[in-house]
């Protein structure tokens, strides 16, 4: 099964992409921003070391890009974030996101704000992306991170595009520092672990939570099953996998959903007996941000409080 990150992406739809399509080039001259865009494009695409001018008005349109941008940009640089990022159930940075006007993924909302840079994820509406690109607004697509290296790369890219590469380096350094505290923290336990949550999804190979488990020295059972990315697992699969450690992703536990019913399945209760069951909020690992370090810390701590204390503090 293909993973989200495997979708072919155009790293930047605009402005360099525009140059390839003669049909789209018409009318560009009408917008004075075009020249600025070209410069920006040259900088984004060129492997030039530094970014000269910081964009002044940055809009971001998806949960994961919102968080990276909020971590890296100056608060007054940001003109809008996606509405989901303002919801604490989905977002680890809801409080901070609430300071900005929300968008709902529509191009019109963004155009009114006249940003000079827009960040989107691969799953933003292609129509919205194309519409913004057509208006000469640089749209930067941040790919979905599936490894910790992807997280670092995304931070680096976003920081560079924002014109704050130093801040990016600092954030990566802090992330690595936090991660170092939990590296192989659970290796000695020799657990075969499985994460299971929201709608019966688990994390197979090429997924962030798999990375977190590997980082902690856990073996991810889902990988043994040949699973990749976000994978749907039935209760039977979970019981059959017979993990030593079951990690439950907490997501809107109070909401009546198939997801949470699966978590209360008697069969799961049975295999859980006598084995560690750990809950980690989904918000910490649903995006490739440095919060993953916290997900790792929580998982380590809650699985083996003593060990984690020793290595973590």
């Amino acid at each position, binding site marked *: 099964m293909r993973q989200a990150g495997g979708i072919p992406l155009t790293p930047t739809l605009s402005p360099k992409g525009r140059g390839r399509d003669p049909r789209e080039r018409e009318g560009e001259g009408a917008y004075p921003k075009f020249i600025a865009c070209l410069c920006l494009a040259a900088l984004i695409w060129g492997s030039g070391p530094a970014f000269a001018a910081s964009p002044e008005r940055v809009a971001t349109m998806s949960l994961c890009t919102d968080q990276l941008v909020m971590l890296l940009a100056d608060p007054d640089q940001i003109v809008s974030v996606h509405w989901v990022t303002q919801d604490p159930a989905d977002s680890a940075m809801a409080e901070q996101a609430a300071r900005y006007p929300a968008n709902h993924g529509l191009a019109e909302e963004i*155009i*009114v704000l006249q940003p000079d840079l827009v960040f989107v994820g691969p*799953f933003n509406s*292609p129509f919205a*992306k*194309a*519409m913004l690109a057509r208006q000469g607004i640089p749209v930067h697509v941040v790919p979905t991170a599936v490894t910790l290296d992807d997280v670092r790369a995304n931070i680096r890219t976003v920081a560079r595009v924002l014109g704050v590469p130093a801040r990016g380096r600092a954030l990566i350094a802090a992330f690595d520092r936090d991660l170092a505290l939990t590296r192989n923290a659970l290796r000695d336990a020799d657990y075969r672990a499985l994460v299971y949550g929201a709608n019966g999804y688990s994390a197979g190979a090429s997924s962030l939570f798999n990375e977190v488990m590997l980082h902690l020295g856990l073996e991810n059972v889902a990988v043994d099953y040949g699973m990749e990315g976000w994978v749907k697992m039935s209760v039977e699969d979970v019981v059959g996998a017979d993990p030593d450690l079951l990690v439950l992703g907490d997501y809107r536990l109070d909401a009546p959903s198939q997801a949470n019913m699966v978590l209360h399945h008697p069969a799961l209760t049975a295999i859980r007996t006598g084995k560690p069951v750990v809950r980690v909020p989904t918000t910490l690992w649903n995006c490739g941000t440095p919060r993953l370090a916290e997900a790792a810390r929580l998982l380590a701590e809650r699985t083996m409080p003593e060990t984690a204390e020793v290595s973590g503090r």
Partner: protein
Amino acid sequence: MTNAGPSRPWLVYAGLIASVIGLFTLSLMIGRGGVWLPASENVGADVADIILFEVRLPRALLGLIGGAVLGACGAALQGLLRNPLAEPGLVGASSGAALGAVVVFYFGLFGGQMAVPMGGLVGALVALGLLYGLAGRRPDVMTLILAGVAINAFAGALTSLALNLAPSPFAALEIVFWMLGSLADRSMDHVWVAAPFAAIGLLLVLSTGRALDALSLGQDTAKSLGFSPGWATLRVILGTGLAVGALVSVAGMIGFIGLVVPHLMRPLVGYHPSRLLLPSMLAGAAVMLAADVVVRLPMQGPELKLGVVTALIGAPFFLMLILRSRRAAA
């Protein structure tokens, strides 16, 4: 000329044209959460222009074209099949278009923003070709309906398969959204893709008015009145397939307009299939434009999907029409 239906047909036309113009204007003026076009002193004249001409104009145009297509094709199909439950989706072209778009979008063929509509068009044409292959050279109404149902079922199954195998929950959500229809953020390029097919389709469909009138007396009598039922069938099916297929290619699935609008028009203009075509076309455009304004009204959360709103308005309305006609018959 007098007849039992319309006492003043010109009044109906005037009202419909005024509604279409009014709703088209409203569609240009109203934005997210019901705010008016941002005043240029707030955002600058150029930004206001961009929003008006590059964001809202294509959207309003697609609403106009799409609604006209659904209304006219719905009326024509109901006339052709002599069945008030017929709707444009019956031909199979729209589910074919939806499948084509979904396939292009999610399975690695995404190159450029026009790939989705192109995939949709290919899907619609393939569905029409299949329909022709299944129904044969001399299609009768029953074979066509059955073939359409079969194509719908198969395309729907394949779309569900795409949903099932979607690379991630987000992709699955996007497929679901596609099935619900939307005009948000479409550009003039989308209008140019849809418009020629819509125009050809509408011409084909509107050209069948008299044949549809004759067909209200059955195939034999229509033939004895000098019409070829097979030729009329071909024009309606092909026209509907092209026009609705093109619409679905750019906007996703939008239901109920084609089904309900002819029923709305019958009390106003009578049951003559030919006299129903133009009013249904205008009313379809008005309803689609209105629905596309409604989707923008909620302030919070994602924009509503157009197909959801048309179904939400359409279903109870349809029920009401049925109840009223039953009461009238009793």
